[in-house]
């Protein structure tokens, strides 16, 4: 055991300096001096993380401005780089936050990427590419992705069924695009509708009871 002569305490562990006053310790007794607290490596170092995030964001701005010199766009490099940085961090944040429930993560991604597409379409002068192609395709692939993913990671029915249902219901959204005539080609939206209908019928047929149990539990007043 070591001793701090300034604080007058015996110190356990391999410290060279006093954990309290940071002055040098003196070797004291022969008694075992193992620290009861093992050295646990840092999970992350906040200072380093912030440094890297700043650097990466600066890099994105630099790349976008350089590309803007060769490929001029109607949006201007500033807005594009801002959009790029924002969507990058939004998607990264969703993946990190929702990493423990893949089904929920997919629902969040459908909503956020769809909104990003609509925003970009709007900024670029609205040519309806987001409602014609992007959102229906996102919805179709999300339903398929979720259907496969929950099988690969062996999720319990109760844990994903409400999210699968939400994703399926979101797949009906392109019907409104068809209704208000926001599409330039109807096929992707129709396909999304068809997929959602099939999936919805399958879910109700196979898991109707599970949905009721989950809803009862989660919406209890």
């Amino acid at each position: 055991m070591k001793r701090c002569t300034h604080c007058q305490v015996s110190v356990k562990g391999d410290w060279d300096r006093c954990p309290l006053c940071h002055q040098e310790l003196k070797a004291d007794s022969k008694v075992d001096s193992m620290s009861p607290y093992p050295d646990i490596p840092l999970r992350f170092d906040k200072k380093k993380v912030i440094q890297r995030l700043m650097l990466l964001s600066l890099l994105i701005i630099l790349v976008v401005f350089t590309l803007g010199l060769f490929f001029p766009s109607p949006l201007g490099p500033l807005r594009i780089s801002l959009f790029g940085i924002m969507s990058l961090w939004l998607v990264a944040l969703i993946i990190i936050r929702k990493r423990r429930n893949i089904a929920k993560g997919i629902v969040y991604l459908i909503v956020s990427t769809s909104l990003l597409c609509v925003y970009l379409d709007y900024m670029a002068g609205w040519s309806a590419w987001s409602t014609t192609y992007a959102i229906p395709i996102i919805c179709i692939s999300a339903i398929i992705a979720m259907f496969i993913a929950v099988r690969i990671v062996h999720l319990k029915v109760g844990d994903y069924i409400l999210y699968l249902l939400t994703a399926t219901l979101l797949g009906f959204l392109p019907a409104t695009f068809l209704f208000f005539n926001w599409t330039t080609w109807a096929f992707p939206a129709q396909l999304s509708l068809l997929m959602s209908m099939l999936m919805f019928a399958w879910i109700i047929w196979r898991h109707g009871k599970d949905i009721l149990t989950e809803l009862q539990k989660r919406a209890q007043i």
Partner: protein
Amino acid sequence: MGVKQVKQKEQPKQKEWVRLDNASNIFLAAMSTTDTKVFRLSAEMQDKIDPISLQKALEQTYARYKLYHSVLRRGIFWYYLQHTEIIPKVAPEVLAPCSQLYHFDQKELLFRVIYNQNRVHLEVFHVLSDGTGALWFFEDLIKEYILLRYPESLDEIKKEQIEAKVRHLEDSFVTYFRHNGQQSFTESAQSALRNFARTSKRAAFKYGKKFGRALLTDRTVPTKKRRVYRIKGEKTADNRTKVIELEMPVKKILHLAHQEEATLTIYLIALFFESIRKSKSDFQIRDTIAISVPVNLRQFYPSNSARNFFSTVKLEYTYTQERDPQLKEICVSLAKQMSQQLSKESLERRLSRLISYEYNPINRVIPRPIKDGVLKIINYSNNRNLTVAMSNLGRVAFPQSIDGYVNRLYFHTSAVRPQFSVISHGDQLTISFTSPFIDTDIQQQFVRELTSAGVEVTLAANKTQADELRGDF
């Protein structure tokens, strides 16, 4: 036990979830990556821990404590505790003390049992239980472990049993482990307040009616404008809790407390206040230091619930310009506030406020995210009026035959502000400081106050910075 389990299986599907009580919701609202709302109870044993015996002991204890078979889930209106069949596994200590136990979207047990060298740690998420409730589980875990690890202790117990029989006393083996009589998951997971309101003579509706009045009258009395000092500092690199742990003989420190005519808790709080005043350069005269101290309600209202059943008292001291106060003056002021807040009327008021909040009908229909938001605001404003916190679990004794196998007990909690936790066993007292900050100036002052008064202190600390872990310290 076996028969009971079979019986349960035969019954139609039981309700396997319990809505989380309002009082526990505050922990979820206040939880952050810095303050994980996890607390740790540790026991230092005679020898290196045997993981196999510990695992067996854990499984046996776990089987008796149904409350611990819980995972926390989120609903639209409520959080709820759901029964789980997950078997807990003991693990070597590879995470920082009081690391997060509950992650949204993950089904995990709300406690963990870990070991390192000759220490066993139980870490519990505060939503599940409070210090006293967790101590019951921990004591039984340690007893089971000792019986498995040191079979000779069993002979001692048998001897005690025979002696007890000779003296026509109750069978000591029956009283050896805690029997709380709560068999089903829903019963053990039920809020302590609901249990209390149900079993006591007061009807629940009485509190429901009282709520409106409580809401109007339970305003804090406006006091003179005063500035509550708040400690600021640089946080640790990965938000882990900084722990400074002190071991000392209990007799010496009790003597010091008695010299000031104070209880141990009051004396330590006063010493902590003085350490803050002396060590913090931005502390100004006329500043107030306020501390929050949890009070175990089981000592006033009998309850065998292991769920949260405590209230907090807030003690404060305002420094005046004239002169530096004597420690005794601070002790007297603190003790007076403590006894006022623990008076029968004050406790009754607290309890009815807690119960009325639990039964408040408006609460039921507000969606959970909104409730979370409101609680976050309440928590934020509460924090603004607090400088520090402390918690004292008191003296813990095991049955005589096994008491000797345990050296010391330790207790600490994750912290949003510097705080200290106290527990004692035998003739050893341990005080563990936890803080989100890397600075140790207050702790240094506190230790120096003790050592200069002649207390022999042994210190241990965890490493929180890259340079400390590299060995540059």
